[in-house]
């Protein structure tokens, strides 16, 4: 990855490459380009003291934003929830203020056009927007219709559209998919189609709003590969909003960090990641190795040997190996993480699948193939794997949302076959990814009381449950509020409380990280951890390896309807071959520790914290 090693100069060469661009095909496009190249120095994107408050909003989504983005720059925009990232994207093509109305101050100028004076249709020919949810942006019945949709709206001649569709298909390497329904593709493919569809409109600026946040690891990789191709081939301005700093740190020329509507950091990735502590404080997840080395910098023995913070595992390995050698590192046993070495089989088996095979209706291939698994009381299990590997299908068997085609599921020793889900919900609670799928009551109190009422608990018991659950989730001050008025974190906690109200032994947390910002994901995992410490068994499904390795004691890797590996977290993340087979990767620090073992240092780490302790104690 040559770009990542040296972002600075690359950026200059990108900016200077205006003259070398290929001759565009279509006349409309040439005319736009000519107006651009006639100007000697030209900002593609210019925000002049821009503030915007949505109609009905109480405070501005973005505030006094000043920003210049030059032609050919690749800009990563990061920030926690509600930092104004999406609003910024919406300003680029005039969705703000023409679609989302509100109070706009200052000027947004795209290629010397003020967005106030243009309409979205015209701006969409300059700025192509791609959104986070693939399903809500694909509207046609075949991939080629989807790609043609934009150019058709613009009234491009038919032959030209046909050529553009072919080009997009080839670019995305989706030959043979032309007639497929976009709705039936995998998430990664769908998002690729969404990018190809925008590409066919020949914008000179691409704005991708969290293009990977709803995807599994394979899908994310696929989309990042498309983004990289886009950079190479098109040489266009790219603005990417993402929480995936780890993968995009080495792709971007420049990172802009937003917080509460304001720009707080702006610079090359290296410059921005130097402020790793600020990034962590506002709830972002910089690459683990950067965080690790940032913390190690606090140690005076290391600080003197550390001239820059690494962004990749390779770089970190090189730097850390040198430091460890120079400071004569000797490993010290760090005691408090040992618990995660083994599975405690003494405990009661709380849910169990025996030879479970499952077919979805009207399908030929099994979604689960002869699964055998036992979950013991008090465990914290993470199930990882790609979409379609059978994770959710398996877990939905534990509370009767699905029933095995063959085999048996036992909950607390009892065959679950004849127990309805609402009855099982007192044993296995299931927290869905999106709290808004569950909340409907007028107050948080009623929301929590709904389950117990529905199961006809006596009134005094319900009151006690509400009080207890609310205090456990720290929402007791919100009991009289309407869930709809709470922020996302509050709604998430209310939904968890609603499930806990039935006092289940097992709590399933489905995809707590998908579509969330890192701070929110961590919050949910911390809640799960507290529940686990108070005696609940936790099963979580996640795509986030960092959180899985940090929180879980046992990890199950699924692939293609089967369990590939099942063991203590330490053992599973050591098995890089099995992980590779399911297209997963151990978290950065784990890989770093493994790489250092290759350099002769005996280190084993599942989290930044653990790695930090091992290195620091081994040195002093």
């Amino acid at each position, binding site marked *: 990855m040559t770009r990542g090693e040296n972002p600075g100069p690359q950026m200059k060469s990108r900016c200077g490459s205006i003259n070398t661009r290929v001759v565009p095909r279509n006349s409309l496009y040439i005319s736009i380009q000519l107006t651009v190249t006639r100007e000697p120095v030209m900002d593609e994107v210019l925000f002049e003291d821009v503030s915007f408050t949505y109609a009905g909003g109480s405070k501005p989504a973005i505030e006094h934003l000043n920003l210049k983005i030059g032609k050919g720059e690749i800009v990563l925009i990061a920030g926690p929830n509600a930092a104004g990232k999406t609003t910024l994207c919406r300003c680029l093509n005039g969705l703000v203020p023409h679609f989302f109305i509100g109070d706009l101050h200052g000027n947004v100028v795209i290629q010397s056009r003020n967005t106030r004076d243009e*309409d979205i249709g015209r701006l969409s020919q300059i700025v192509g927007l791609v959104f986070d949810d693939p399903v*809500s942006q694909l509207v046609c019945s075949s991939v080629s219709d989807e790609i043609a949709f934009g150019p058709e709206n613009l009234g491009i001649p038919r032959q030209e559209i046909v050529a553009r569709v072919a080009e997009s298909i080839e670019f995305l390497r989706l030959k043979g998919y032309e007639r497929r329904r976009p709705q039936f593709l995998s998430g990664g493919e769908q998002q690729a189609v969404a990018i190809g569809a925008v590409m066919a*409109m020949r914008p000179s600026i691409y704005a991708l709003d969290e293009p990977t946040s709803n995807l599994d690891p394979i899908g994310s990789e696929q989309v990042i590969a498309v983004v990289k191709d886009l950079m190479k081939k098109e040489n266009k301005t790219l603005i990417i909003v993402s929480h995936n700093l780890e993968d995009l740190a080495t792709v971007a020329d420049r990172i802009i960090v937003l917080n509460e509507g304001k720009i707080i950091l702006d610079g090359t990735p290296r410059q921005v990641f130097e402020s790793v502590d600020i990034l962590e404080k506002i709830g972002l997840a910089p690459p683990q190795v950067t965080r690790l080395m940032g913390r190690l910098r606090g140690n005076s023995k290391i600080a003197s040997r550390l001239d820059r913070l690494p962004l990749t595992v390779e770089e970190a390995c090189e730097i850390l190996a040198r430091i460890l050698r120079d400071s004569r590192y000797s490993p010290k046993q760090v005691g408090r993480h040992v618990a995660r070495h083994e599975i405690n089989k003494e405990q009661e088996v709380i849910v169990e699948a025996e030879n479970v095979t499952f077919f979805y209706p009207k399908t030929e291939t099994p979604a689960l193939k002869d699964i055998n698994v036992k979950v013991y009381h008090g465990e914290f299990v993470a199930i990882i794997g790609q979409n379609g590997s059978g994770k959710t299908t398996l877990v939905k068997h534990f509370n009767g949302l699905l029933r095995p085609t063959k085999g048996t599921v036992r909950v607390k020793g009892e065959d679950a076959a004849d127990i309805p889900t609402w009855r099982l919900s007192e044993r296995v609670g299931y927290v*869905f990814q999106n709290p808004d799928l569950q909340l409907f009551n007028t107050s948080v109190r009623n929301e929590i009381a709904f389950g117990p009422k529905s199961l006809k608990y006596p009134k005094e018991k319900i009151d006690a449950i509400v009080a207890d659950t609310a205090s456990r989730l720290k929402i007791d001050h919100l009991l009289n509020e309407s869930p709809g008025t709470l922020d996302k974190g509050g709604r998430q906690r209310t939904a968890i409380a609603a499930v806990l109200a039935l006092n289940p032994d097992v709590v399933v947390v489905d995809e707590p990280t998908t579509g969330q910002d890192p701070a929110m994901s961590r919050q949910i995992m911390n809640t799960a951890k507290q529940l686990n410490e108070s005696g609940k068994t936790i099963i979580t499904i996640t795509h986030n390896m960092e959180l899985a390795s940090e929180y879980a004691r046992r990890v199950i890797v699924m692939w293609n309807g089967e369990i590939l590996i099942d063991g203590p977290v330490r053992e599973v993340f050591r098995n890089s071959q099995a992980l590779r087979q399911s297209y997963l990767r151990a978290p950065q620090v784990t890989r770093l520790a493994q790489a250092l073992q290759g350099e002769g240092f005996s280190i084993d780490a599942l989290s930044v914290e653990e790695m930090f302790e091992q290195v620091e104690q081994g040195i002093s």
Partner: protein
Amino acid sequence: MSVIVEFLEGKSLLHRLDPRSKMLMWGAFTVGIVLISDPIVCLALLVPFVVWTAASGIPLKTAFSVYVRVYSLIILYGVVSLFLSNANLAAAKDPANIVVYLDPIHKWLPVTNQGIIWDVAMVIRFIFIIYVLQLIMFTTPMVDLVLGLAKWRVPAKAALAMSIALGFVPVFAIAISTIMDAQKCRGWKGFESGSPVDKIKALPVLFTPVVMNAITRAQQISVAIESRGFGHNIEKRTWTRELKFSAADYVVNAISIIFFVATNVLTSMGYGTYQLTYSLLFRS
């Protein structure tokens, strides 16, 4: 859980026909069959379409599965139309025609032989109209239907909006079933048990999340399509797919028109009424 009839890929003649020909065919046959009230003729007209279904590579099981879902509606339709039909009322004047009374004690609600025949025709007509419509939906991508409508001067924006909305029906269906699952996980008993009152009481549990979800989704979709130039200069919109009549289209259109004219003429001359079957069955 598919609510709407899905397009099934294929290369058959029916797939290749111009959507306008197919829509014309549906219109002509719908009007035609409404004029015919003879069950034998109605059934005879359905047969070629069933054969055509099989010839177009569409499993008959799929084609008829819709009736399994709406059978209660068909029965209701059959019962109501029986007692409201003029044929039944007229025939009831002659006691010889009466087969049975629904209320034998008071001799109320007579059911006559002619009424039954007429009613059977009604039900077959109902089935026929749905059948031909879904046959077209099976073999025509939504965009083509929209394009066909646009060529007929239906406003492009309305036609496109309709096709996008229809395309999202399965997505909403998935959302609804996820919401039902999510509620069951917190002790909701669903629609499976309890009295009808309980079932109605259970509705608000779904209502708020479903509506909120639909609103969010609708906004996401409109943001996405606006960002791709939807509605921009709509009169000049390009339609990539070309519609062209082939020889087969002319043949099919000719058949549709002939059928339309013929049924109009023949039924006005008194052919094709339930009397034909009646005389075959009872007056031979």
